């Protein structure tokens, strides 16, 4: 089965610089319910929870914007604030210029939310009946709803599941139906909360292809705001990623830049064959008096593996290749490995003092 694509035939477009979602100094502190009463009766109470603290960023039209962070970092709170389900304590969120508190109905006309929560559907209704209900709430007439639903079911390859009860659908189809529901009113902004959670690898791949294709419709550019714990997925899909930790945005950039900013070192591993390995080692020691490297036998017979680290874009790799060339060795492969998003995430999860030490 191939992945679903939106549009069915379209030219690929890149995000532009126009902000569609603007998050401006948003803070959210969950108040203690009935605080005055609890104080009056001298009852114990937990301190207020500061879920999001002075967060600002913009999501540009047509981009896939990722938000990553550990559990409890504030991802869901932020998504729900954008979706108007929670009011911020301070700051402002606008979607297409509409304020999430003052113009909440307008914001909801421009936003579709798809989460991994299976309970958000009516289990005893069919997939089609569920979509019909939500289409009518979006104000679609009967004919409009029918046309739109059949288009979405076709595009998401859910036609065979249309008349099945929601309870009978596979997890992948349930997730697909959540995306279909979020797209019912053709919203320009799509909020996806862990869209591939509990999907098998094949279904997850199809889902990622679907998400990617959503932003590539030249006629109707969908902007995607995505939260996920799957860092490989975020790296594959997102134009930009924000890292949130303890309610604060710690970093925001393209995944490649985030990795580079975190550490500009990369580990290089070169596999080669040569007549006289001792000669190569001696030449390398001459070339790098202080630069550590390891030279060992490769997994395949007659091959050698040279491993060293270098700063991105420095001259080390060029020098090494010259040495190998002069020693009449044949380079079989070169592999380089830079910091992963996981390492970046782990870095921002460390206490501030440790981060500073590492930075220094």
């Amino acid at each position, binding site marked *: 089965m191939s992945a679903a694509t939106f549009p069915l035939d379209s030219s690929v477009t890149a995000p532009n610089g126009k902000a569609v979602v603007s998050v401006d100094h948003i803070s*959210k502190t*969950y*108040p203690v*319910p009935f605080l005055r009463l609890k104080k009056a009766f001298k009852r114990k109470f937990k301190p207020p929870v500061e879920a999001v603290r002075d967060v600002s960023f913009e999501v540009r039209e047509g981009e896939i914007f990722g938000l990553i962070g550990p559990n409890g970092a504030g991802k869901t*709170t932020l998504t*729900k604030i954008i*979706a108007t*389900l*929670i*009011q911020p*304590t301070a700051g402002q969120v606008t979607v297409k210029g509409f304020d999430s508190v003052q113009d909440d*109905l*307008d914001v*909801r*006309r421009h*936003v*579709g*939310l798809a989460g991994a*929560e299976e*309970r*958000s*559907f*009516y289990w*005893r*209704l069919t997939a089609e*009946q569920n979509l*019909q*209900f*939500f289409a*009518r*709430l*979006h*104000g679609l*007439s009967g004919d409009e709803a029918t046309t739109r639903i059949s288009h979405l079911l076709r595009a998401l390859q859910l036609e065979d599941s249309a008349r099945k009860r929601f309870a009978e659908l596979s997890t992948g189809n349930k997730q697909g139906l959540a995306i279909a*529901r979020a797209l019912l*009113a053709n919203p320009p902004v799509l909020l996806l909360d862990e869209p591939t959670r509990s999907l098998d690898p094949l279904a997850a791949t199809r889902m990622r292809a679907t998400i990617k294709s959503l932003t590539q419709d030249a006629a109707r550019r969908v902007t995607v705001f995505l939260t996920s714990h799957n860092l490989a997925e975020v790296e594959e899909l997102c134009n930009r990623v924000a890292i949130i930790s303890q309610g604060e945005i710690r970093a925001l950039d393209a995944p490649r830049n985030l990795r580079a900013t975190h550490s500009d070192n990369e580990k290089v591993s070169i596999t080669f064959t040569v007549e006289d390995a001792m000669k190569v080692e001696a030449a390398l020691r001459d070339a790098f008096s202080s630069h550590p490297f390891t030279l060992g036998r490769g997994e395949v017979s007659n091959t050698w593996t040279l491993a060293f680290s270098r700063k991105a874009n420095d001259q080390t790799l060029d020098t090494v290749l010259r040495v190998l060339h002069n020693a009449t060795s044949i380079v079989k492969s070169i592999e380089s490995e830079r910091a992963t998003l996981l390492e970046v995430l782990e870095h921002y999860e460390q206490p501030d003092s440790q981060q500073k030490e590492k930075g220094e």
Partner: protein
Amino acid sequence: MNPLLFLRRIWAFVVRDWRLELSYRMQFFLRVLSILILVTTFFFVSRIFVGFADPRFTQWHDPLAAWLTGMAMLNYFMTGFSSLANAIRQEQVQGTLESVLMTPISVPTVIVASSAWDFVQATLFSSLYLVFGWLFFNVHYMGNFLLALAFLLLTTVVLSCLGILSASFAMVFKRGDPFGVFLGAGSALFSGVFFPTQLIRDYAGGAVASVSRVLPATYGLDGLRRVLIEGQGFAQVRQPLISLLIFLAVLLPLSLWVFSRAVRRAKREGSLIQY
């Protein structure tokens, strides 16, 4: 708000609930059967009182007619003040409230529309009390049916205001519904569903009897019986009608204000979808 769009959304909820109801067909037939059994039971109980009618209680000359109108009204009343809170609680428990609230629909519309099917059902089941009485037990109703309907609707709107207060409570406190408890039990006891309210004065004194005066259901039921059982016209039922209008004038703005505060609080606390 566009009234057509509003009605379209209410219709969407009614269709949804009808489809859900269809998936539990047995429950519907059992409910119809239980009403028939109850009406039959009341018929036999009413036979005990043949020839013992107290001339003071003009609405109770045929106790079966009085009980059936009382039961039909009580069913409607209970729906009025419990279905709004139940609707929001059910969506919370099912986990569907968040997805409903992600559509461009206001919270008050969600609550009104979610309870629409309950009123459709209540109309059907309340009618069954009267129809079974007429069909199987020779109970006859007279008077202006439109006027009776006006009483029914007005009382339901007044009780729905209490239902909105109850829904506000459900939104903030999640569980426990003082309005449902006091008004549900209170209406059955004090508003004359099963016996004339004058008996409370005779046996418990004026202070206790005055409770029935502050219950809107008392006036609704009195008005309905005056029309359907005594055959009274508009001029004769002005007093209960005016009482209901006064309740409406006080309760409607109060309940809407309390409700808007509850929604704001729930959104601020982030507890709108919690239960």
